[in-house]
Protein backbone atom coordinates (compact mmCIF):
# COMPACT_ATOMS: atom_id res chain seq x y z
CA UNK A 1 0.00 0.00 0.00
CA UNK A 2 1.19 3.43 -0.69
CA UNK A 3 1.93 5.55 2.30
CA UNK A 4 -0.56 8.26 2.75
CA UNK A 5 -0.02 11.66 4.07
CA UNK A 6 -2.07 12.87 6.90
CA UNK A 7 -1.87 16.38 8.06
CA UNK A 8 -3.48 16.42 11.43
CA UNK A 9 -5.51 19.44 12.27
CA UNK A 10 -3.70 21.92 14.43
CA UNK A 11 -4.14 20.96 18.08
CA UNK A 12 -6.54 23.10 20.04
CA UNK A 13 -4.83 25.72 22.12
CA UNK A 14 -4.30 23.75 25.28
CA UNK A 15 -2.94 26.00 27.99
CA UNK A 16 0.70 25.29 28.42
CA UNK A 17 1.59 23.40 31.54
CA UNK A 18 3.43 25.86 33.73
CA UNK A 19 6.98 24.78 33.20
CA UNK A 20 8.98 24.11 36.27
CA UNK A 21 11.74 25.82 34.32
CA UNK A 22 12.23 29.14 36.03
CA UNK A 23 11.33 28.13 39.52
CA UNK A 24 12.64 25.20 41.47
CA UNK A 25 16.03 23.77 42.10
CA UNK A 26 18.55 23.22 39.26
CA UNK A 27 17.73 19.53 39.46
CA UNK A 28 14.05 20.21 38.79
CA UNK A 29 15.01 22.48 35.93
CA UNK A 30 17.05 19.76 34.24
CA UNK A 31 14.17 17.35 34.75
CA UNK A 32 11.72 19.78 33.14
CA UNK A 33 13.93 20.21 30.11
CA UNK A 34 14.40 16.46 29.76
CA UNK A 35 10.80 15.48 30.31
CA UNK A 36 9.78 15.80 26.63
CA UNK A 37 12.56 13.41 25.71
CA UNK A 38 10.97 10.65 27.75
CA UNK A 39 7.88 10.93 25.56
CA UNK A 40 9.22 11.75 22.13
CA UNK A 41 12.74 10.34 22.52
CA UNK A 42 11.93 6.84 21.25
CA UNK A 43 10.31 8.31 18.14
CA UNK A 44 13.36 10.48 17.49
CA UNK A 45 15.70 7.52 17.92
CA UNK A 46 13.65 5.43 15.50
CA UNK A 47 13.50 8.20 12.90
CA UNK A 48 17.22 8.85 13.17
CA UNK A 49 18.28 5.23 12.92
CA UNK A 50 15.93 4.16 10.16
CA UNK A 51 15.39 7.29 8.09
CA UNK A 52 18.24 9.73 8.65
CA UNK A 53 21.22 7.39 9.00
CA UNK A 54 20.45 5.76 5.63
CA UNK A 55 20.32 9.21 4.03
CA UNK A 56 23.79 10.00 5.38
CA UNK A 57 25.15 6.61 4.33
CA UNK A 58 23.64 7.02 0.89
CA UNK A 59 25.41 10.35 0.38
CA UNK A 60 28.64 8.90 1.74
CA UNK A 61 28.45 5.92 -0.59
CA UNK A 62 27.80 8.19 -3.56
CA UNK A 63 31.14 9.95 -3.01
CA UNK A 64 33.17 6.85 -2.20
CA UNK A 65 34.69 4.07 -4.24
CA UNK A 66 33.07 0.83 -3.15
CA UNK A 67 34.28 -2.41 -4.70
CA UNK A 68 32.20 -5.42 -5.67
CA UNK A 69 32.36 -7.06 -2.23
CA UNK A 70 31.43 -3.83 -0.44
CA UNK A 71 34.93 -2.75 0.59
CA UNK A 72 35.27 1.03 0.85
CA UNK A 73 38.32 2.36 -1.04
CA UNK A 74 37.82 5.93 0.10
CA UNK A 75 36.61 9.28 -1.11
CA UNK A 76 36.46 9.79 -4.88
CA UNK A 77 34.63 13.09 -5.26
CA UNK A 78 32.18 13.25 -8.15
CA UNK A 79 33.58 10.19 -9.95
CA UNK A 80 30.44 8.11 -9.37
CA UNK A 81 28.25 10.88 -10.74
CA UNK A 82 30.50 11.15 -13.79
CA UNK A 83 30.22 7.41 -14.32
CA UNK A 84 26.46 7.74 -14.03
CA UNK A 85 26.40 10.48 -16.66
CA UNK A 86 28.38 8.24 -18.99
CA UNK A 87 25.72 5.51 -18.80
CA UNK A 88 24.51 5.26 -22.40
CA UNK A 89 20.88 4.67 -21.42
CA UNK A 90 20.61 7.44 -18.82
CA UNK A 91 18.90 9.96 -21.13
CA UNK A 92 16.29 7.41 -22.20
CA UNK A 93 15.65 6.35 -18.60
CA UNK A 94 15.18 9.95 -17.45
CA UNK A 95 12.84 10.75 -20.35
CA UNK A 96 10.84 7.58 -19.65
CA UNK A 97 10.57 8.53 -15.97
CA UNK A 98 9.18 11.96 -16.87
CA UNK A 99 6.60 10.35 -19.19
CA UNK A 100 5.77 7.75 -16.54
CA UNK A 101 5.13 10.34 -13.83
CA UNK A 102 3.28 12.89 -15.97
CA UNK A 103 1.02 10.39 -17.72
CA UNK A 104 0.22 8.29 -14.63
CA UNK A 105 -0.54 11.29 -12.42
CA UNK A 106 -2.60 13.12 -15.05
CA UNK A 107 -4.64 10.03 -15.93
CA UNK A 108 -5.11 9.22 -12.24
CA UNK A 109 -6.40 12.70 -11.47
CA UNK A 110 -8.82 12.78 -14.41
CA UNK A 111 -10.21 9.29 -13.69
CA UNK A 112 -10.47 10.03 -9.97
CA UNK A 113 -12.33 13.31 -10.53
CA UNK A 114 -14.88 11.41 -12.63
CA UNK A 115 -15.15 8.52 -10.17
CA UNK A 116 -15.47 10.86 -7.21
CA UNK A 117 -18.42 12.56 -8.91
CA UNK A 118 -20.01 9.17 -9.54
CA UNK A 119 -19.45 7.85 -6.02
CA UNK A 120 -20.60 11.10 -4.47
CA UNK A 121 -24.10 10.58 -5.88
CA UNK A 122 -26.75 8.86 -3.83
CA UNK A 123 -27.73 5.42 -5.06
CA UNK A 124 -28.63 2.13 -3.40
CA UNK A 125 -25.63 0.08 -2.32
CA UNK A 126 -23.20 2.98 -2.49
CA UNK A 127 -21.25 1.74 0.50
CA UNK A 128 -20.62 -1.67 -1.04
CA UNK A 129 -19.53 -0.11 -4.33
CA UNK A 130 -17.17 2.28 -2.54
CA UNK A 131 -15.80 -0.62 -0.54
CA UNK A 132 -14.88 -2.50 -3.73
CA UNK A 133 -12.91 0.52 -4.85
CA UNK A 134 -10.46 0.22 -1.96
CA UNK A 135 -9.25 -3.27 -2.94
CA UNK A 136 -6.21 -2.09 -4.94
CA UNK A 137 -5.36 0.36 -2.15
CA UNK A 138 -5.33 -2.36 0.50
CA UNK A 139 -3.72 -5.13 -1.55
CA UNK A 140 0.00 -5.46 -2.13
CA UNK A 141 0.97 -3.47 -5.23
CA UNK A 142 3.47 -6.16 -6.08
CA UNK A 143 0.82 -8.89 -6.06
CA UNK A 144 -1.57 -6.71 -8.07
CA UNK A 145 1.15 -6.22 -10.68
CA UNK A 146 1.82 -9.98 -10.80
CA UNK A 147 -1.87 -10.64 -11.47
CA UNK A 148 -1.84 -8.12 -14.32
CA UNK A 149 1.21 -9.86 -15.75
CA UNK A 150 -0.75 -13.12 -15.56
CA UNK A 151 -3.81 -11.51 -17.19
CA UNK A 152 -1.57 -10.29 -20.04
CA UNK A 153 -0.21 -13.77 -20.77
CA UNK A 154 0.02 -13.99 -24.60
CA UNK A 155 -1.87 -17.29 -24.82
CA UNK A 156 -4.13 -17.57 -21.81
CA UNK A 157 -4.33 -14.12 -20.21
CA UNK A 158 -7.79 -12.85 -19.32
CA UNK A 159 -7.18 -9.46 -20.93
CA UNK A 160 -5.90 -11.02 -24.15
CA UNK A 161 -8.85 -13.43 -24.33
CA UNK A 162 -11.14 -10.44 -23.96
CA UNK A 163 -9.28 -8.41 -26.60
CA UNK A 164 -9.49 -11.44 -28.88
CA UNK A 165 -13.23 -11.82 -28.26
CA UNK A 166 -13.98 -8.20 -29.12
CA UNK A 167 -11.84 -8.41 -32.24
CA UNK A 168 -8.96 -6.14 -31.25
CA UNK A 169 -6.49 -8.98 -31.14
CA UNK A 170 -6.59 -11.22 -34.25
CA UNK A 171 -4.89 -14.22 -32.69
CA UNK A 172 -3.83 -15.41 -29.25
CA UNK A 173 -0.26 -16.46 -28.58
CA UNK A 174 1.24 -14.24 -31.27
CA UNK A 175 4.01 -11.68 -30.84
CA UNK A 176 1.30 -9.02 -30.92
CA UNK A 177 -0.36 -10.59 -27.89
CA UNK A 178 2.94 -10.50 -26.00
CA UNK A 179 2.46 -6.95 -24.76
CA UNK A 180 5.07 -7.15 -22.03
CA UNK A 181 7.66 -8.49 -24.48
CA UNK A 182 7.71 -5.20 -26.42
CA UNK A 183 9.16 -2.28 -24.45
CA UNK A 184 6.85 0.45 -25.77
CA UNK A 185 3.66 -1.58 -25.34
CA UNK A 186 4.84 -2.85 -21.94
CA UNK A 187 5.33 0.71 -20.69
CA UNK A 188 1.74 1.65 -21.57
CA UNK A 189 0.30 -1.41 -19.84
CA UNK A 190 2.38 -0.68 -16.76
CA UNK A 191 1.20 2.92 -16.83
CA UNK A 192 -2.33 1.50 -16.82
CA UNK A 193 -1.59 -0.63 -13.76
CA UNK A 194 -0.03 2.34 -11.98
CA UNK A 195 -3.17 4.39 -12.64
CA UNK A 196 -5.28 1.46 -11.44
CA UNK A 197 -3.54 1.29 -8.06
CA UNK A 198 -3.39 5.09 -7.65
CA UNK A 199 -7.08 5.73 -8.29
CA UNK A 200 -8.54 4.48 -4.95
CA UNK A 201 -6.56 6.80 -2.69
CA UNK A 202 -7.00 9.74 -5.06
CA UNK A 203 -10.74 9.20 -5.46
CA UNK A 204 -11.16 9.02 -1.70
CA UNK A 205 -9.16 12.20 -1.20
CA UNK A 206 -11.35 14.01 -3.74
CA UNK A 207 -14.54 12.53 -2.26
CA UNK A 208 -13.51 13.91 1.10
CA UNK A 209 -12.87 17.26 -0.53
CA UNK A 210 -16.31 17.19 -2.12
CA UNK A 211 -17.95 16.44 1.20
CA UNK A 212 -16.18 19.39 2.80
CA UNK A 213 -17.86 21.82 0.40
CA UNK A 214 -20.82 23.39 2.21
CA UNK A 215 -24.21 22.69 0.61
CA UNK A 216 -25.33 26.33 0.66
CA UNK A 217 -22.88 27.42 -2.06
CA UNK A 218 -24.64 24.97 -4.35
CA UNK A 219 -28.04 26.28 -3.31
CA UNK A 220 -26.90 29.77 -4.31
CA UNK A 221 -25.77 28.47 -7.70
CA UNK A 222 -29.13 26.80 -8.27
CA UNK A 223 -30.91 30.05 -7.41
CA UNK A 224 -28.71 31.86 -9.92
CA UNK A 225 -29.75 29.34 -12.55
CA UNK A 226 -26.25 27.97 -13.19
CA UNK A 227 -25.99 24.83 -15.32
CA UNK A 228 -24.48 21.70 -13.70
CA UNK A 229 -21.28 21.97 -15.75
CA UNK A 230 -20.98 25.68 -14.98
CA UNK A 231 -21.50 24.92 -11.28
CA UNK A 232 -18.84 22.23 -11.39
CA UNK A 233 -16.35 24.49 -13.14
CA UNK A 234 -16.95 27.65 -11.15
CA UNK A 235 -17.73 26.25 -7.71
CA UNK A 236 -16.69 22.64 -7.24
CA UNK A 237 -13.29 22.75 -8.93
CA UNK A 238 -12.05 25.96 -7.27
CA UNK A 239 -13.19 24.73 -3.85
CA UNK A 240 -11.53 21.36 -4.48
CA UNK A 241 -8.23 23.02 -5.30
CA UNK A 242 -6.53 22.31 -1.95
CA UNK A 243 -7.57 18.66 -2.00
CA UNK A 244 -6.46 18.31 -5.61
CA UNK A 245 -3.10 19.94 -4.94
CA UNK A 246 -2.34 17.57 -2.07
CA UNK A 247 -3.51 14.57 -4.09
CA UNK A 248 -1.35 15.55 -7.06
CA UNK A 249 1.77 15.95 -4.96
CA UNK A 250 1.29 12.70 -3.06
CA UNK A 251 0.71 10.92 -6.35
CA UNK A 252 3.79 12.45 -7.96
CA UNK A 253 5.88 11.17 -5.09
CA UNK A 254 4.34 7.70 -5.06
CA UNK A 255 4.58 7.28 -8.80
CA UNK A 256 8.12 8.62 -8.99
CA UNK A 257 9.21 6.16 -6.29
CA UNK A 258 7.10 3.33 -7.65
CA UNK A 259 9.06 0.11 -7.86
CA UNK A 260 6.94 -3.09 -7.64
CA UNK A 261 4.80 -2.58 -10.77
CA UNK A 262 7.64 -2.37 -13.26
CA UNK A 263 9.71 -4.86 -11.28
CA UNK A 264 6.98 -7.52 -11.31
CA UNK A 265 5.92 -7.02 -14.92
CA UNK A 266 9.16 -6.52 -16.86
CA UNK A 267 11.87 -5.98 -14.21
CA UNK A 268 12.76 -2.91 -16.30
CA UNK A 269 13.71 -5.12 -19.21
CA UNK A 270 14.57 -6.12 -21.78
CA UNK A 271 17.82 -4.68 -20.41
CA UNK A 272 16.82 -1.27 -19.07
CA UNK A 273 14.37 -0.47 -21.85
CA UNK A 274 11.38 -0.16 -19.52
CA UNK A 275 13.26 1.12 -16.46
CA UNK A 276 12.49 4.36 -14.67
CA UNK A 277 15.19 6.03 -12.56
CA UNK A 278 14.02 4.07 -9.50
CA UNK A 279 14.32 0.71 -11.30
CA UNK A 280 17.58 1.79 -12.95
CA UNK A 281 18.99 2.58 -9.51
CA UNK A 282 18.20 -0.97 -8.41
CA UNK A 283 19.70 -2.44 -11.59
CA UNK A 284 22.90 -0.43 -11.08
CA UNK A 285 23.20 -1.74 -7.54
CA UNK A 286 24.35 -5.14 -8.77
CA UNK A 287 27.11 -3.67 -10.98
CA UNK A 288 28.20 -0.68 -8.91
CA UNK A 289 26.65 0.19 -5.59
CA UNK A 290 28.42 3.56 -5.55
CA UNK A 291 26.99 4.58 -8.91
CA UNK A 292 23.62 3.37 -7.71
CA UNK A 293 24.05 5.60 -4.66
CA UNK A 294 24.87 8.53 -6.94
CA UNK A 295 21.60 8.01 -8.80
CA UNK A 296 19.80 7.66 -5.43
CA UNK A 297 21.19 11.04 -4.42
CA UNK A 298 19.82 12.56 -7.61
CA UNK A 299 16.44 10.88 -7.06
CA UNK A 300 16.52 12.02 -3.47
CA UNK A 301 17.15 15.60 -4.55
CA UNK A 302 14.06 15.42 -6.72
CA UNK A 303 12.04 14.04 -3.79
CA UNK A 304 13.25 16.90 -1.57
CA UNK A 305 12.07 19.44 -4.12
CA UNK A 306 8.70 17.70 -4.14
CA UNK A 307 8.56 17.70 -0.34
CA UNK A 308 9.22 21.42 -0.25
CA UNK A 309 6.49 21.98 -2.81
CA UNK A 310 4.18 19.83 -0.72
CA UNK A 311 4.91 21.66 2.51
CA UNK A 312 4.30 24.96 0.76
CA UNK A 313 1.03 23.70 -0.66
CA UNK A 314 -0.10 22.22 2.64
CA UNK A 315 1.31 24.94 4.86
CA UNK A 316 -1.53 27.37 4.31
CA UNK A 317 -4.11 25.03 5.75
CA UNK A 318 -2.44 22.90 8.32
CA UNK A 319 0.27 24.57 10.29
CA UNK A 320 2.75 22.64 12.30
CA UNK A 321 2.53 25.27 14.93
CA UNK A 322 3.17 25.64 18.57
Amino acid at each position, binding site marked *: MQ*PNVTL*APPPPPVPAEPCAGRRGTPRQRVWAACQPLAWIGPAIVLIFSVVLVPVVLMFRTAFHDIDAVGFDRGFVGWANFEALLREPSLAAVVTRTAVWVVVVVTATMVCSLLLAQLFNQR*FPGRRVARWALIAPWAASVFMTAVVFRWMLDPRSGLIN*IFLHDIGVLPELGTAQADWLGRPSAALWWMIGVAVFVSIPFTTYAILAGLQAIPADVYEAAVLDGASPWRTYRSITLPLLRPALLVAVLINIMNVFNSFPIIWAMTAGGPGDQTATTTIFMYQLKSSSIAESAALSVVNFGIVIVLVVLFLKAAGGRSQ*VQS
Partner: protein
Amino acid sequence: MSATRKIVLAVLAYGVAALFLLPYLAMVVAAARPAGELKDPTYLPSRFDWSNFVTLWSSGLGANLGISLQVAAGATALVLLVSLPAAYFTARRRFRGRTAFLLLVLVTQMFQPTAMLVGIYREFVALGLNNSIWGLILVNAGFNLAFATWILNAYISSIPVELEEAATVDGAGRLGALLRVTLPLAWPGVVTALIFTFIAAWNEFVVALILTSDPAKQPLTVVLDSYLGGYQIDWGHLFAASAVATVPVIVLFALIERKVVGGLTAGAVK
Protein backbone atom coordinates in the same frame (compact mmCIF):
# COMPACT_ATOMS: atom_id res chain seq x y z
CA MET B 1 -33.35 12.64 -8.46
CA SER B 2 -35.39 10.43 -10.74
CA ALA B 3 -35.49 6.67 -10.29
CA THR B 4 -34.01 6.00 -13.74
CA ARG B 5 -31.06 8.22 -13.04
CA LYS B 6 -30.47 6.43 -9.78
CA ILE B 7 -30.47 3.07 -11.53
CA VAL B 8 -28.09 4.26 -14.23
CA LEU B 9 -25.73 5.66 -11.59
CA ALA B 10 -25.88 2.47 -9.55
CA VAL B 11 -25.19 0.27 -12.58
CA LEU B 12 -22.24 2.47 -13.56
CA ALA B 13 -20.84 2.41 -10.05
CA TYR B 14 -21.24 -1.36 -9.74
CA GLY B 15 -19.47 -1.75 -13.06
CA VAL B 16 -16.54 0.30 -11.81
CA ALA B 17 -16.53 -1.60 -8.52
CA ALA B 18 -16.44 -4.93 -10.37
CA LEU B 19 -13.55 -3.70 -12.49
CA PHE B 20 -11.55 -2.86 -9.38
CA LEU B 21 -12.22 -6.26 -7.83
CA LEU B 22 -11.50 -8.15 -11.05
CA PRO B 23 -7.73 -8.69 -10.61
CA TYR B 24 -8.31 -10.15 -7.15
CA LEU B 25 -11.02 -12.47 -8.47
CA ALA B 26 -8.61 -13.46 -11.25
CA MET B 27 -6.05 -14.23 -8.55
CA VAL B 28 -8.41 -16.64 -6.78
CA VAL B 29 -9.56 -18.24 -10.05
CA ALA B 30 -5.96 -18.75 -11.19
CA ALA B 31 -5.14 -20.40 -7.87
CA ALA B 32 -8.13 -22.72 -8.27
CA ARG B 33 -7.39 -23.82 -11.84
CA PRO B 34 -6.69 -27.55 -12.11
CA ALA B 35 -3.03 -28.08 -13.03
CA GLY B 36 -3.91 -29.31 -16.54
CA GLU B 37 -5.95 -26.21 -17.34
CA LEU B 38 -3.52 -23.61 -16.06
CA LYS B 39 -2.71 -22.20 -19.48
CA ASP B 40 -6.07 -22.78 -21.16
CA PRO B 41 -7.39 -19.74 -23.02
CA THR B 42 -10.67 -19.67 -21.09
CA TYR B 43 -12.13 -17.14 -18.67
CA LEU B 44 -12.97 -19.87 -16.17
CA PRO B 45 -11.67 -23.40 -15.70
CA SER B 46 -14.03 -26.35 -16.26
CA ARG B 47 -13.96 -27.01 -12.52
CA PHE B 48 -12.41 -25.44 -9.44
CA ASP B 49 -9.61 -27.31 -7.74
CA TRP B 50 -8.78 -25.86 -4.34
CA SER B 51 -5.88 -28.20 -3.61
CA ASN B 52 -3.30 -25.42 -4.09
CA PHE B 53 -4.66 -23.80 -0.96
CA VAL B 54 -3.97 -27.02 0.96
CA THR B 55 -0.57 -27.92 -0.48
CA LEU B 56 0.48 -24.30 -0.06
CA TRP B 57 1.38 -24.96 3.55
CA SER B 58 3.64 -27.89 2.76
CA SER B 59 5.29 -26.06 -0.15
CA GLY B 60 7.28 -23.89 2.24
CA LEU B 61 5.30 -20.75 1.51
CA GLY B 62 3.52 -21.17 4.83
CA ALA B 63 6.78 -20.33 6.58
CA ASN B 64 7.17 -17.18 4.49
CA LEU B 65 3.63 -16.15 5.33
CA GLY B 66 4.66 -16.62 8.95
CA ILE B 67 7.60 -14.27 8.46
CA SER B 68 5.34 -11.65 6.88
CA LEU B 69 3.06 -12.00 9.88
CA GLN B 70 5.91 -11.61 12.39
CA VAL B 71 7.31 -8.58 10.57
CA ALA B 72 3.92 -6.90 10.31
CA ALA B 73 2.96 -7.65 13.92
CA GLY B 74 6.38 -6.60 15.22
CA ALA B 75 6.40 -3.35 13.25
CA THR B 76 2.86 -2.54 14.39
CA ALA B 77 3.69 -3.14 18.04
CA LEU B 78 6.83 -1.02 17.80
CA VAL B 79 5.02 1.80 16.01
CA LEU B 80 2.31 1.95 18.66
CA LEU B 81 4.80 1.77 21.49
CA VAL B 82 6.77 4.68 20.06
CA SER B 83 4.03 6.82 18.53
CA LEU B 84 1.49 6.78 21.37
CA PRO B 85 3.64 8.66 23.89
CA ALA B 86 4.90 11.04 21.21
CA ALA B 87 1.40 11.75 19.92
CA TYR B 88 0.05 12.19 23.45
CA PHE B 89 2.77 14.55 24.51
CA THR B 90 2.68 16.72 21.39
CA ALA B 91 -1.10 16.92 21.60
CA ARG B 92 -1.18 17.94 25.24
CA ARG B 93 1.94 20.01 25.87
CA ARG B 94 3.72 22.94 24.38
CA PHE B 95 7.44 22.53 24.78
CA ARG B 96 10.59 23.76 23.17
CA GLY B 97 11.30 21.68 20.06
CA ARG B 98 7.71 20.61 19.55
CA THR B 99 7.48 22.30 16.15
CA ALA B 100 10.80 20.85 15.09
CA PHE B 101 9.70 17.39 16.16
CA LEU B 102 6.39 17.56 14.30
CA LEU B 103 8.18 18.84 11.20
CA LEU B 104 10.66 15.98 11.44
CA VAL B 105 7.78 13.51 11.56
CA LEU B 106 6.04 15.22 8.66
CA VAL B 107 9.18 15.17 6.55
CA THR B 108 9.85 11.47 7.18
CA GLN B 109 6.30 10.87 6.06
CA MET B 110 7.35 12.17 2.66
CA PHE B 111 10.41 9.96 2.39
CA GLN B 112 9.87 6.55 1.00
CA PRO B 113 12.32 3.75 1.63
CA THR B 114 12.64 3.24 -2.12
CA ALA B 115 14.39 6.59 -2.46
CA MET B 116 17.10 5.58 -0.01
CA LEU B 117 17.45 1.86 -0.63
CA VAL B 118 21.22 2.01 -0.97
CA GLY B 119 21.59 3.73 2.40
CA ILE B 120 19.26 1.28 4.12
CA TYR B 121 21.15 -1.61 2.58
CA ARG B 122 24.54 -0.26 3.70
CA GLU B 123 23.33 0.43 7.23
CA PHE B 124 21.57 -2.86 7.85
CA VAL B 125 24.32 -4.97 6.30
CA ALA B 126 26.83 -3.14 8.50
CA LEU B 127 24.65 -3.86 11.55
CA GLY B 128 24.26 -7.49 10.54
CA LEU B 129 20.50 -7.02 10.36
CA ASN B 130 20.08 -8.27 6.83
CA ASN B 131 18.30 -11.61 6.56
CA SER B 132 16.73 -10.80 9.90
CA ILE B 133 13.16 -10.24 10.95
CA TRP B 134 14.35 -7.50 13.30
CA GLY B 135 15.84 -5.47 10.48
CA LEU B 136 12.54 -5.54 8.60
CA ILE B 137 10.57 -4.70 11.75
CA LEU B 138 12.77 -1.65 12.36
CA VAL B 139 12.55 -0.30 8.81
CA ASN B 140 8.80 -0.84 8.56
CA ALA B 141 8.23 0.79 11.94
CA GLY B 142 10.42 3.75 11.04
CA PHE B 143 8.64 4.52 7.82
CA ASN B 144 5.15 4.08 9.25
CA LEU B 145 5.71 6.02 12.42
CA ALA B 146 4.61 9.30 10.88
CA PHE B 147 1.12 8.16 9.88
CA ALA B 148 0.45 6.71 13.34
CA THR B 149 1.81 9.75 15.15
CA TRP B 150 -0.27 12.17 13.10
CA ILE B 151 -3.52 10.29 13.35
CA LEU B 152 -3.11 9.64 17.10
CA ASN B 153 -2.17 13.25 17.66
CA ALA B 154 -5.36 14.32 15.91
CA TYR B 155 -7.52 11.95 17.96
CA ILE B 156 -5.97 12.86 21.28
CA SER B 157 -6.18 16.58 20.49
CA SER B 158 -9.91 16.19 19.96
CA ILE B 159 -10.43 14.78 23.47
CA PRO B 160 -11.08 17.55 25.99
CA VAL B 161 -8.20 17.84 28.40
CA GLU B 162 -10.74 18.51 31.19
CA LEU B 163 -11.67 14.83 31.16
CA GLU B 164 -8.13 13.88 32.09
CA GLU B 165 -7.94 16.62 34.69
CA ALA B 166 -11.15 15.38 36.26
CA ALA B 167 -9.72 11.89 36.46
CA THR B 168 -6.56 13.24 38.02
CA VAL B 169 -8.58 15.09 40.62
CA ASP B 170 -10.50 11.91 41.33
CA GLY B 171 -7.28 10.29 42.38
CA ALA B 172 -6.00 8.64 39.24
CA GLY B 173 -2.37 9.51 38.53
CA ARG B 174 -1.40 11.08 35.25
CA LEU B 175 -0.59 7.69 33.80
CA GLY B 176 -3.84 6.33 35.18
CA ALA B 177 -5.76 9.15 33.49
CA LEU B 178 -3.96 8.46 30.24
CA LEU B 179 -4.66 4.74 30.35
CA ARG B 180 -8.20 4.87 31.72
CA VAL B 181 -9.60 8.01 30.11
CA THR B 182 -7.63 9.17 27.08
CA LEU B 183 -6.71 5.83 25.56
CA PRO B 184 -10.25 4.40 25.49
CA LEU B 185 -11.54 7.62 23.91
CA ALA B 186 -8.74 7.62 21.34
CA TRP B 187 -9.33 3.92 20.63
CA PRO B 188 -10.67 4.41 17.06
CA GLY B 189 -7.47 6.27 16.25
CA VAL B 190 -5.38 3.52 17.81
CA VAL B 191 -7.19 0.84 15.80
CA THR B 192 -6.77 2.85 12.60
CA ALA B 193 -3.04 3.33 13.20
CA LEU B 194 -2.73 -0.34 14.11
CA ILE B 195 -4.44 -1.74 11.02
CA PHE B 196 -2.84 0.79 8.70
CA THR B 197 0.67 0.00 9.90
CA PHE B 198 0.03 -3.72 9.84
CA ILE B 199 -1.14 -3.65 6.23
CA ALA B 200 1.71 -1.41 5.11
CA ALA B 201 4.30 -3.72 6.67
CA TRP B 202 2.49 -6.84 5.45
CA ASN B 203 2.59 -5.56 1.85
CA GLU B 204 6.09 -4.07 1.98
CA PHE B 205 8.25 -5.30 -0.85
CA VAL B 206 11.29 -3.24 -1.84
CA VAL B 207 13.14 -3.11 1.46
CA ALA B 208 12.59 -6.82 2.07
CA LEU B 209 13.81 -7.48 -1.46
CA ILE B 210 17.20 -5.89 -0.79
CA LEU B 211 17.56 -6.98 2.85
CA THR B 212 16.68 -10.66 2.60
CA SER B 213 18.48 -13.09 0.30
CA ASP B 214 17.93 -16.27 2.31
CA PRO B 215 14.61 -17.83 1.15
CA ALA B 216 14.00 -19.08 4.69
CA LYS B 217 14.08 -15.49 5.96
CA GLN B 218 12.06 -13.83 3.20
CA PRO B 219 8.55 -12.51 3.68
CA LEU B 220 5.93 -13.75 1.24
CA THR B 221 6.20 -10.90 -1.30
CA VAL B 222 9.92 -11.45 -1.81
CA VAL B 223 9.76 -15.22 -2.07
CA LEU B 224 6.97 -14.87 -4.65
CA ASP B 225 9.25 -12.54 -6.59
CA SER B 226 11.87 -15.27 -6.74
CA TYR B 227 9.15 -17.61 -8.08
CA LEU B 228 8.78 -15.21 -11.01
CA GLY B 229 12.46 -15.58 -11.85
CA GLY B 230 12.24 -19.37 -11.94
CA TYR B 231 12.36 -21.40 -15.14
CA GLN B 232 8.96 -22.98 -14.48
CA ILE B 233 6.73 -20.59 -12.60
CA ASP B 234 4.51 -22.33 -10.06
CA TRP B 235 1.55 -20.05 -10.76
CA GLY B 236 -0.91 -22.16 -8.78
CA HIS B 237 0.90 -21.83 -5.47
CA LEU B 238 1.98 -18.28 -6.27
CA PHE B 239 -1.62 -17.15 -6.62
CA ALA B 240 -2.94 -19.30 -3.77
CA ALA B 241 -0.44 -17.61 -1.47
CA SER B 242 -1.25 -14.19 -2.94
CA ALA B 243 -4.96 -14.75 -2.35
CA VAL B 244 -4.38 -15.89 1.23
CA ALA B 245 -2.30 -12.74 1.77
CA THR B 246 -4.65 -10.35 0.00
CA VAL B 247 -8.21 -11.19 0.96
CA PRO B 248 -7.86 -10.67 4.74
CA VAL B 249 -6.04 -7.41 4.14
CA ILE B 250 -8.84 -6.03 1.96
CA VAL B 251 -11.38 -6.94 4.64
CA LEU B 252 -9.24 -5.36 7.38
CA PHE B 253 -8.83 -2.19 5.36
CA ALA B 254 -12.57 -1.98 4.82
CA LEU B 255 -12.97 -1.83 8.62
CA ILE B 256 -10.93 1.35 8.90
CA GLU B 257 -11.69 2.83 5.48
CA ARG B 258 -13.88 5.61 6.87
CA LYS B 259 -11.40 6.58 9.55
CA VAL B 260 -8.41 6.53 7.23
CA VAL B 261 -10.33 8.82 4.96
CA GLY B 262 -11.31 10.94 7.96
CA GLY B 263 -7.65 11.12 8.97
CA LEU B 264 -6.61 11.95 5.45
CA THR B 265 -9.18 14.69 5.11
CA ALA B 266 -8.57 16.17 8.55
CA GLY B 267 -5.71 18.40 7.56
CA ALA B 268 -5.35 17.86 3.87
CA VAL B 269 -8.62 19.42 2.91
CA LYS B 270 -9.69 21.90 5.52
